[in-house]
């Protein structure tokens, strides 16, 4: 810092030094929407939310502070605990499976296959459909009376049992199936792009070294695709935290509260229960979790700018 201060001091004598503010002025002006969004909406909205989570606001936000009451209630609520647990299960599995499936599909697509475009389109098209639609279709497919279970039973396997949406213990996996159907195509695309960016010579080198293909993928190629995994992670993870529509469309959180998720808790308490304070407390908890994991990582990952490229 001292270096900068003396620097400015000596330069002051020179004519025409523009002020710090006006340098890069166009860039700054052009970034105003971004700054406003970041500061007013994301940061301001967050702080506002946190502030009101300490109040007893009902339908409308009011600054009647009640300390940590809302949080105590939140962590005593079985539904919240179930939501957190569900999010953890759903998050972990959907991360793992979408990465694994996405990568495997991409690896298969990268084998110089015929009809690559067709396959790619097939894997990608569900991404064009909304979660509402996805939820609906899979609700239909998984419906025990009409869906896969009844069809398989009709074919003779009468003992066949596949009824995830009405079984509390596995309902979250029923949601996972639909989520993977919708999202793995994009992951596949990202991974495929990453694979195409790998130097041909690496493959040649590993062939000369006699390394089997799967080992090359596992020990050489995957570690080289770090940036792709980072982008994919951001996209998948942000989707996981926000999962809401799919649950609503598929199960509305049921059976019972077996497939509740935090975002739905927030929404339900803010608007249905008309207890904004409670909803804000829940969203604050979500934000804190996200912040603890994301902020340090995001800063490290994204503040390097051009240097890293």
């Amino acid at each position, binding site marked *: 810092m001292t270096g900068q201060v003396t620097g400015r001091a000596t330069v002051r004598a020179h004519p025409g030094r523009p002020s710090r503010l006006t340098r890069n002025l166009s860039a700054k002006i052009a970034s105003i929407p971004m700054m406003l969004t970041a500061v007013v909406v994301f940061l301001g909205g967050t702080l506002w939310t946190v502030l009101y989570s300490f109040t007893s606001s009902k339908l409308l936000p009011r600054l009647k502070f009640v300390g940590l009451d809302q949080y105590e209630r939140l962590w005593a609520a079985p539904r919240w605990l179930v939501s957190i647990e569900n999010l953890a299960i759903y998050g972990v599995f959907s991360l793992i499976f979408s990465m694994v499936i996405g990568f495997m599909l991409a690896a298969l697509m990268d084998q110089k296959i015929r009809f690559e475009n067709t396959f790619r389109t097939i894997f990608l098209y569900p991404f064009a459909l909304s979660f509402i639609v996805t939820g609906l279709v899979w609700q239909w497919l998984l419906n025990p009376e009409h869906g896969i279970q009844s069809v398989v039973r009709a074919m003779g396997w009468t003992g066949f049992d596949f009824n995830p949406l009405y079984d509390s213990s596995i309902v979250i996996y029923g949601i996972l199936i639909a989520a993977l159907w919708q999202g793995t195509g994009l992951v596949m695309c990202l991974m495929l792009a990453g694979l195409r960016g790998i*130097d041909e*010579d*690496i493959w*040649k*080198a*590993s*062939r*000369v*070294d*006699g*390394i*089997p293909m799967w*080992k090359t993928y596992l*020990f*050489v190629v995957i*570690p*080289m695709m770090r940036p792709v995994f980072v982008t994919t992670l951001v996209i998948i993870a942000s989707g996981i935290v926000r999962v809401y529509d799919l649950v609503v469309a598929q199960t509305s959180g049921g059976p019972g509260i077996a497939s509740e998720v935090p975002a739905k808790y927030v929404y339900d308490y803010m608007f249905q229960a008309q207890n904004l304070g409670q909803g804000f407390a829940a969203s604050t908890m979500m934000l804190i979790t996200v912040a603890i994991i994301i902020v340090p990582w995001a800063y490290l990952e994204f503040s390097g700018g051009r240097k890293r490229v």
Partner: protein
Amino acid sequence: MTSVSVKDLRLSFGQVTVLDQLNLDIQEGEFLVLLGSSGCGKSTLLNCIAGLLDITDGQIFINGRNVTWDEPKDRGIGMVFQSYALYPQMTVEKNLSFGLKVAKLPQGEIDKRVARAAEILQIGPLLKRKPSELSGGQRQRVAIGRALVRDVDVFLFDEPLSNLDAKLRSELRVEIKRLHQSLKNTMIYVTHDQIEALTLADRIAIMKGGVIQQLADPNTIYNAPRNMFVAGFIGSPSMNFLKGEIATGADGKTVFVAGGVTFSLNGYRAGDPLLPGRKVVLGVRPEHVAVDEAAAGGELHEAVVDIEEPMGADNLLWLKHAGHTMAVRTAGSRRFRPGTKVRLSFDMSLASLFDAATEERI
């Protein structure tokens, strides 16, 4: 004994035939350089030998064994790539040992081989580093090491130095040469840098459009190029070419006439008879032209200095002579200002004559 032998090789990518009817025999312990401009098929040929490309027709033998259908790893070859192709997330040590581990060699053997390669290449202190923490030259050394540990008979290099800066390149060139002198493996080395080719090769194969133009030792290539392509390709700056024809001089001797100027052919050893009237091209290298001095047996020609390029040890002159531009290399200590008139003499014993039509050496 031949170490690598390529017979009637053909390779097509779909409709495009890149290599056709290519034959090449490489002796055991020989250092062969494949030289040619970009896109002439050098890497393709190397990849065929390595087994990284499926050939369309022909056969490939390594150490007398027909390996045409063998997997790369079973051919007893090691390969070094232009982009190094190091496994970026593994330490140098892992890079070296990975292939051996996969081949299930005993750990003791692996350690021994890695240690030996590290010693030969002097990368012992780097073993624990990742490739990203190495300089270009060090990376290249590790890449060579990876071939080295595999204890192979034949080393294949695909432009191993072209990603490095000039200084490093000349250093590593010496190292590769030394490596070859001590290991005595067969080495096939692809480059488009003629200095590398000249300094490293036992023999050079000059390629153009998938065809080997000349396969000979560097000295022959440099001093007796088989055709104008080879002559022009090798040497920097290029050989000077003068178009003209054979005539009979005033004294009855065979002379070369270009742009009204007559050159005696004293000292030139022609393979073909030099019949008067034959259209030919005279090629003479910049260092075989003497400036302001009478070279052995040559007569003097007037020229004007156009541009001077001092290069330290040498001084390169670009002259206007008989309507051509001509490059001449003089000692670095001699300086000429542009516009200066000088007198040239040609060393015909080191010049080349080519048929103007076939471009073949006479």
